[in-house]
Structures are given as structure tokens and as C-alpha cells.
């Protein structure tokens, strides 16, 4: 310590500040090493156990994140976990031959979105939103990927199991919190995340005539072919 009065060291504010700065830097280095050395995100609890006694984990991580903000590697948070990731604008330089990203079917992606935005949600509710039964191989694919999990049971008749997303979901999709799901607030505001029709949801009184309105086209044979329901050579029998 460069203090001239060693016996007053503990009382001098500048000595404290200096000491704090040194230990803060040291805590940052340790956190940096721990997170950098891991492929998966590192929880704040894990860090707290390994940083010097009493080091303010949140402050340390904020400081470290700022240090890396303009670098080729960024420190990112997902939930209460931290990870180093290459900067998104540099994705073009890193071409991995083995594409590590799972290709999800449209159905699986849709189910994942419904679980993310509506959690906790039951399977019956997912099916009600999509209007079809969830085919086998959809939920288990998402579970195997580690993005969804059984959360608990709904306190309602039958006590159905509820589904929700995992911390790995946040990490994989680059979300700090579930609150950061794109468009979440708008969807909530529009009442589209509820099972019930919002009171302000208006539907115009349907026209009472069989005739098509100006902006409608009649369905033609061609449309059916386009929709893939008819083979182009389909014969009309009746």
C-alpha cells in the first residue's frame, strides 16, 4: 500500500478506494477467467463462491461487460448467468462446417414460441392456440434440445402439467430475460397472450350477403391446386 501513514490506512478514504479498486480489478480478472474458460454460461452463484469474499458480483460483471462491449468477443447475460460470445456482427468470419444449430420444423418452432410467450402453459392450451393436436416428436424434440421443461402443475381441475422454457433457451436465443422476448409487451397489450378475448377486441358486423366483397376473390379450381389439395389432373366426378 503506498500510504504514508500505515497506521491510519484503514481510516483514509483514498486508501480504501485504492484497496477497493485493486480488489475489484482482481475480482474482475477471476470472473473473466472463469467465464472465459467455459463454453456454457456461468451462474452468478458459481462466481460468488469463487470471487474474493464480499466481492459485489453484479458490479464486477457489469464492469467486465463494459470492457468487452466494443470487442470481437462480448460478455452477455442470460438470466443470472454470464457467457462470452463472439460479437454478432462478426458472424460472417466464423463459418462452422458442422452447423450446430438444430433445424426445427415449423410446428416445433411455433410450439416453442407459444410456450415461451404463454408460459406456464399446458399442452391443451397449446393445442387450443394452434387448433391441432401436437404431433409426437414435437415436445420431446424441444425437451431434448434443452429449451423447454415441465414446470409444475396447474391448480385447476385435473391438475395438468405446465410447460415453460429453460435457462438454455434464453442463452440460445440471446435473451437476457424472458421480458426481452420480442414484441412481448405489444402482444400483452393486444390481449393476445390470454385465453380470453379482450373486451376491446372488435370484429365488424359480418356482411349479411353471400356475395363476395370488393376485396375478395372467389375460390377457383386453380386455388385448390395451389393449395395442394388437388392434383392438376384431378377429375371431377360428381
Amino acid at each position, binding site marked *: 500500500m503506498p500510504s504514508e501513514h500505515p497506521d491510519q490506512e484503514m481510516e483514509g478514504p483514498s486508501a480504501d478506494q485504492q484497496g477497493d479498486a485493486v480488489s475489484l480489478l482482481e475480482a474482475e480478472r477471476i470472473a473473466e477467467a472463469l467465464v472465459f474458460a467455459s463454453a456454457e454460461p456461468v451462474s452468478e452463484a458459481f462466481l460468488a463462491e469463487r470471487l474474493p469474499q464480499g466481492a459485489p458480483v453484479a458490479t464486477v460483471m457489469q464492469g467486465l461487460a463494459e470492457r468487452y462491449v466494443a470487442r470481437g468477443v462480448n460478455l452477455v447475460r442470460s438470466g443470472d448467468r454470464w457467457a462470452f460470445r463472439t460479437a*454478432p456482427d462478426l458472424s460472417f468470419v466464423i463459418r462452422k462446417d458442422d*452447423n450446430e*444449430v438444430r433445424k426445427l420444423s415449423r410446428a416445433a418452432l411455433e410450439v416453442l414460441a407459444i410456450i415461451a410467450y404463454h408460459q406456464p402453459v399446458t399442452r391443451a392450451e397449446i393445442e387450443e392456440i394452434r387448433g391441432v393436436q401436437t404431433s409426437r416428436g414435437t415436445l420431446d424434440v424441444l425437451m*431434448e434440445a434443452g429449451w423447454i421443461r415441465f414446470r409444475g402443475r396447474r391448480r385447476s381441475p385435473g391438475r395438468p402439467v405446465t410447460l415453460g422454457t429453460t435457462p438454455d433457451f434464453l442463452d440460445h436465443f440471446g435473451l437476457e430475460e424472458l421480458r426481452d422476448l420480442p*414484441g412481448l409487451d405489444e402482444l400483452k397489450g393486444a390481449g393476445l397472450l390470454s385465453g380470453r378475448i379482450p373486451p376491446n377486441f372488435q370484429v365488424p358486423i359480418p356482411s349479411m350477403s353471400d356475395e363476395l366483397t370488393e376485396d375478395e376473390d372467389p375460390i377457383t379450381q386453380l386455388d385448390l391446386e395451389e393449395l395442394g389439395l388437388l392434383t392438376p389432373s384431378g377429375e371431377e366426378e360428381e
Partner: protein
Amino acid sequence: MNIAPSSIPMDQLWQDTPERAADEPALVIDVGGFEGPLDLLLHLARSQKVDLARISVLALAEQYLAFIESARRVRIELAADYLVMAAWLAYLKSKLLIPQQAKGDEGPSGEEMAATLAFRLKRLEAMREAATRLINRNLVGRDVHVRGAPEHIPHRVQSAYDASLFDLLSAYANIRQRHAITQVTIEKRKVWSLSDARDLLTRMLGEITEWTVLQHYLLQYLPADDRVTATASAFAASLELVREGKLEIRQDGAFQPIYLRQGRNPAVAPEVVVDAF
């Protein structure tokens, strides 16, 4: 879709499929890439080229019914989901075209039912958009990358062993299934009943507070061969549902239409909030 149920050719739909056990879920036929009737409706709604909130549900219902009719004309067999939706839309259409009665106990009006449908389409579309926005984020392994040469795995060591709930449940399902499969009794697929139809509808549209003579509409859309058995099993199934308190039945006189509606003890809470209107 690469999952077995949806890859069954359409012409096999109403034939016997002996490899399917009785408790298999209803077939989900991927009609030309559609995932169920709501998906098809959404597609038709988009072709109206108007905002979903301003859509004409009546026009939409007619498009859907015209579509189903054309499919039937050329003898394309459609999955039950599509037919039940057709029956419901035919019923909705009739309610929309008949001037509103003053009767209080007739359940939701055609307008309220139309609003429910529009809401569901809007909600499904919103989830589609959300899914697209999710997949367009910077994904780990595609857009951003993890440390290539990790030096440790940062688990908080509480147990020296690791396993996930998914591992556990898979193991359990596997072991139980392996021993159960030897005793499988294969049953012929039965004709779908009124209660099947009701389940399908619930899934598509939420709980139906008023069902009235939907059966009448339903029969129009059943393949001719199945009408008799369907009527019989429908009656048996509805008695069962009445006993469970899930259904109420009313008939004004002999040979009059049978009215049905949701009972006082529904399996799930009603989703349609009529009070809001």
C-alpha cells in the same frame, strides 16, 4: 412434417389402419402443408388481404366451406378436424344470416362466435410472427459462437452425478413401454363419434357454450358410409357425457331435433367470455 401420422396418404384416411391402436390420437392429416383447419383458415383469411381484425368472418366461412365442397366433389377425403370445422362454420353461417333473436338462453350470438374465431386467428398469427422473430435473433452456434476450447464445466457441484429431468422421464417411459408393448391388443379404429367431434372442436375453438343442433351440420360433412354408425355412437357418447355432467340434452318433442350444450361440470373452464360483450 416428417412424423408418421401426417405422412399417411389421404386416400387411406377412412380406410382401416390396423396398425393404429384405439387410443391413438385422431389423425392429423397435413392437407397440402396445412397444420389443421385453423391454419387453413388463416391462409384463407390472408388471401382476403385485409387486417385480421377487420376480416369478414362470414366471407371466410364461405370460402372455407366452398373449399371443403370442392375437395368433396373430387372425392378427396379430409381429416376429421377439417370436417368438424366445416360443420361449425356452417352452423356459424346460419346464425349470422338469421336475424338475432331476442331469446336470452340461446347462448352466444353469431357475432360473438365470429369474434371468437377472429380472435383465435389473430392469436395464431401473432404466435407465427413471434416464432419468426425468435428464429431471426442471433442464435448461439449460428450467429454467435461459444469458446471453442473450454477449460472447465462450471457446475455447482452438489452431486457428483448429473442427469436431467428429460433423461429421467425418457428412461422411465422407455422401460415401462418396453414391457407393456408385448401385451398390446390391437383394436380396429372406430368411427369418430360426437364426443370425438366435441374434442376436436374444443381444441380448435375452445369450449363451446352452446352447441345446439351441431350434430345436424356434422352429419352433412361425414362420409356417407359413416353416417349411421356416427349417429349411433354420437347418441351413446352424448349419454355418457350427460352422465358425467359435461353435456346437457334437450328435445322439445318426439322426432324433434336434439339440442345439446355444455353441461354444468365442464372438463375445463369455459374459454369464451360472453360477458365481455
